[in-house]
């Protein structure tokens, strides 16, 4: 409610701005083709910027409900209190002014692949020649109905999407008594950003160490072991945080009892002062018509990212049915977006897309305010299997947590923003 009012006010301000003030120009009648990008995150905004750089005769509209680009990878540091929410957001202004992307802040109601039109909640529908659906993830509340109830949703945060969730959980952590228990419930893989929950345990532990040292962190993992960088995280937990973090594998959360302050697992209940329950995830609801796997994910052609369900619609980022050992990461979304932008330019010119695309993945996790670890991989196209495969022998993990990579991680945030926005 408040966000929408704020956005409305923002829209009114924009509309009232003098025309000399570089207000976004309407789509030109001269443009060769029009691409509508749904979602302005690591996938969508990066694709929009690169499309305009590669071929300025292609008109691009980016539809994003939020007023600014929220860097989810920074959110765990915000939870720890080591970065401010202001550090985690950046405006879309340069994308509009420098690159001529028309940015529309609205909610997409439907991507109609047949009529080739994107329908908006408030604004007029936008026709497209090609659409890019990059909405990230939504949650499978049917697997955890309590999390969808308003009384629970206002008191138990997933903090896995949107700055309001991060702010809500941070507030609870600040209000928690010293000696309290903070529990993180992790869903079965695949979910977005595999190392994120483990990094979250580190960041909150660093906060507790300084502010409420008698507290405890319970990591309730539905998976049989850590899904990413397990050895490195376990080492960080024991060396940096003593016994503060307790890890429980095969502990799948199925329900939440807010009144009792309990997370219900399959076999037992766990009491916690602050509950961070991350429900299972699926492709963003806006991508529902393009879901082809298990009612959850969207299959794509890896040369173009065109949906297997609808020609003319491309799907990027966390909504995709991943290839073998491919993470749902911001880094991967950035890489996919650039392959997709190149492919769309080729397709609109009547040419074949690159037959040998390469994706690079580099994910950093901050295990303390000053130490980081990474996981990296290089993925290339296998034409026989028609999928992306990791290059054997390439990529890997940090040998140990270190300070240099904490600086690289901070740079990564700035450079991926630049690659998407500037």
């Amino acid at each position, binding site marked *: 409610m408040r966000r929408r009012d704020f956005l409305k006010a923002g829209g009114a301000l924009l509309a009232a701005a003098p025309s000399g003030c570089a207000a976004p120009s309407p789509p030109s009648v001269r443009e060769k083709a029009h691409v509508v990008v749904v979602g302005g995150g690591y996938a969508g905004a990066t694709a929009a910027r690169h499309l305009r750089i590669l071929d300025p005769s292609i008109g691009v509209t980016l539809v994003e409900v939020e007023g600014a680009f929220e860097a989810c990878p920074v959110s765990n540091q915000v939870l720890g209190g080591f970065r401010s929410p202001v550090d985690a957001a950046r405006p879309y202004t340069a994308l509009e002014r420098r690159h001529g992307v028309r940015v529309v802040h609205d909610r997409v109601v439907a991507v109609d692949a047949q009529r080739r039109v994107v329908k908006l909640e408030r604004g007029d529908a936008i026709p497209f020649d090609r659409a890019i659906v990059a909405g990230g993830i939504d949650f499978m509340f049917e697997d955890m109905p309590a999390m969808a109830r308003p009384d629970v949703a206002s008191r138990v945060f997933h903090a896995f999407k949107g700055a309001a969730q991060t702010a809500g959980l941070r507030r609870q952590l600040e209000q928690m008594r010293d000696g309290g228990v903070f529990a993180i419930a992790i869903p079965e893989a695949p979910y977005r950003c595999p190392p994120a929950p483990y990094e979250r345990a580190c960041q909150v532990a660093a906060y507790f160490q300084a502010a409420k040292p008698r507290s405890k962190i319970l990591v309730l993992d539905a998976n049989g072991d850590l899904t990413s960088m397990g050895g490195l995280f376990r080492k960080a937990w024991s060396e940096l945080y003593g016994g503060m973090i307790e890890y429980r594998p095969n502990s799948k959360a199925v329900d939440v009892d807010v009144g009792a302050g309990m997370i219900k697992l399959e076999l037992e209940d766990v009491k916690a002062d602050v509950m961070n329950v991350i429900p299972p995830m699926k492709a963003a609801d806006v991508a529902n018509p393009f879901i082809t796997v298990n009612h959850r994910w969207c299959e794509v052609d890896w040369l173009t990212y065109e949906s297997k369900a609808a020609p003319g619609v491309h799907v990027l980022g966390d909504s995709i049915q991943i290839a073998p050992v491919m993470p749902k990461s911001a880094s991967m979304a*950035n890489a996919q977006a650039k*392959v997709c932008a190149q492919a769309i330019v080729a397709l609109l010119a009547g040419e074949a897309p690159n037959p040998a695309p*390469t994706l690079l993945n*580099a994910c950093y996790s901050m295990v303390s305010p000053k130490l980081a670890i990474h996981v990296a991989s290089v993925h290339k196209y296998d034409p026989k299997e028609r999928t992306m495969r990791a290059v054997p022998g390439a*990529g890997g993990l940090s040998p140990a947590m270190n300070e240099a990579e904490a600086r*690289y991680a901070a740079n990564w945030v700035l450079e991926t923003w630049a690659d998407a926005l500037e």
Partner: protein
Amino acid sequence: MSSRPLRKLSLVAAVGLSCALPALSQQVQFPAPQFAPPNLTPRGVAGLAMNCAICHGPGGRPVAGSGIPALAGRPEREVVEAMRQFKEGSRAGTLMSQIAKGYSDEEIVAMARHFSALGAKAPR
């Protein structure tokens, strides 16, 4: 509601399909990848080079104050030599020593040439 059994079914199907050829003992393994030959056309190389942006900055020009070296405008030979050392392990690195192994020698030369041709001061 019934997503869980479905999920398992399709996993079995996916593994089954990908393992149609190799021996039964390798049931959870995928066959060795057979990658497409590298695309060394200007567009193909530009595509490869775009991947470097997340650390070295868009166009190979890092943000001010970044400790990560620029690539734009660097002499071709310098970049090729550094990548060769990263690849064979004679030069220490955090990520580069691992990532360099993902590229063929031809791809490395082509990317180095691409970056050296970009002006160091052109917009990012």
